[in-house]
């Protein structure tokens, strides 16, 4: 649910990075945080366990500039990937305006990707959302690794409806801003249409 504040002339949108455990969601946010000028970013919050696995969520507020006299603010969240944190994932999806699905391109993670995508659809459906009607993009992360699935295969299993997709290496930043830009654009276009 985006929030338009006429008093402060701001528009706030919520974007959630979803995907299996260790696919690189937190790394995406960390890279965005590092590369964003201080005046455009807020504090990055990571609610993590001692082993640095995301426990509840990571949160990064970004101010991207003005559109039509309104300051645009994007609140980026990640979810914990591990299967047993499903309750937390559901909470974070509440009021979501756009979704980035981060896939782990390694062959042995294909099943985990598929399972996580199914889980995303189910959790959205519970709240009355249809994933394919929401602003939605896919990122094939860890493209730098040797044991990755061919892009055709990733596409076939994870992107049947051909939403915008990006190859990425979140660790070095390749594809990270392209992904962010694409989802931000879809979210703003969705506001323009005003129908969902």
């Amino acid at each position, binding site marked *: *649910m*985006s*929030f*338009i*504040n*006429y*008093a*402060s002339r701001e*528009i*706030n949108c*919520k974007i959630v990075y979803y995907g299996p455990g260790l696919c690189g969601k937190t790394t995406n946010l960390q890279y965005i945080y590092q590369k964003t000028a201080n005046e455009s970013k*807020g*504090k990055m*919050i990571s*609610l993590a366990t001692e082993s640095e696995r995301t426990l*509840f*969520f990571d*949160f990064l*507020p970004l101010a*991207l*500039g003005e*559109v*039509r*006299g*309104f300051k*645009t603010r994007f*609140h980026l969240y990640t979810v914990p990937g591990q299967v047993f944190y499903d*309750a*937390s994932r*559901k*909470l*974070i999806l*509440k*009021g979501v*305006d756009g979704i980035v699905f981060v896939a782990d391109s390694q062959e042995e993670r294909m099943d985990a990707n598929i399972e996580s995508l199914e889980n995303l659809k189910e959790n959205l459906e519970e709240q009355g959302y249809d994933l394919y009607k929401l602003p939605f993009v896919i990122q094939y992360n860890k493209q730098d690794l040797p044991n990755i699935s061919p892009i055709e295969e990733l596409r076939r299993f994870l992107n049947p409806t051909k939403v915008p997709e990006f190859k990425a290496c979140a660790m070095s930043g390749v594809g990270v*801003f392209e992904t962010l*830009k694409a989802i*931000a*654009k879809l979210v*703003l*276009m969705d*506001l*323009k249409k*005003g*129908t*969902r």
Partner: protein
Amino acid sequence: MLNTQTTFVLYDEEAEKVKEVIDNLLKASNAKSIYLIDKNGQMIASTGNVAEIDATSLASLTAGNIAATGGLAKLIGEKEFAIQFHEGEKDNIHISIVGSRVILVVIFDQRSSLGLVRLRVKKASNTLTTIFDEISAKENAQDGMPGRANPFAEITDDDIDNLFS
């Protein structure tokens, strides 16, 4: 038109009314600062000594906290826990859900007391609920209101590209 299910719109008139209520609450409760946050973690209004605290972080963590507590409540068969109180060494935080839609956060120290904050919050909550009911009613009736059209209806690809340049 903006879809009322997916977009929460706050206009100047309501923003002013809301601000007045929390300004009054600040005085009446002798609190340090007060924040009104929507359940998705977005700051609606604040007052008092707000410069010390990162408001965006506060909003997101409060919403996360309320969401998690709400999940706990459902687990044990409650609808929600409407009030939370956390006591620190110097500062305390009182969190309450207003009209099941927004979250009211009051930060106070020894110059106030939990009893006083509770009492004043209760009264302010009723006023706020009325205001937010009005906002909802307005949103539902929005279709026929000229001059309040979607400010993003005219947005172009270039506008969006410029955000990233």
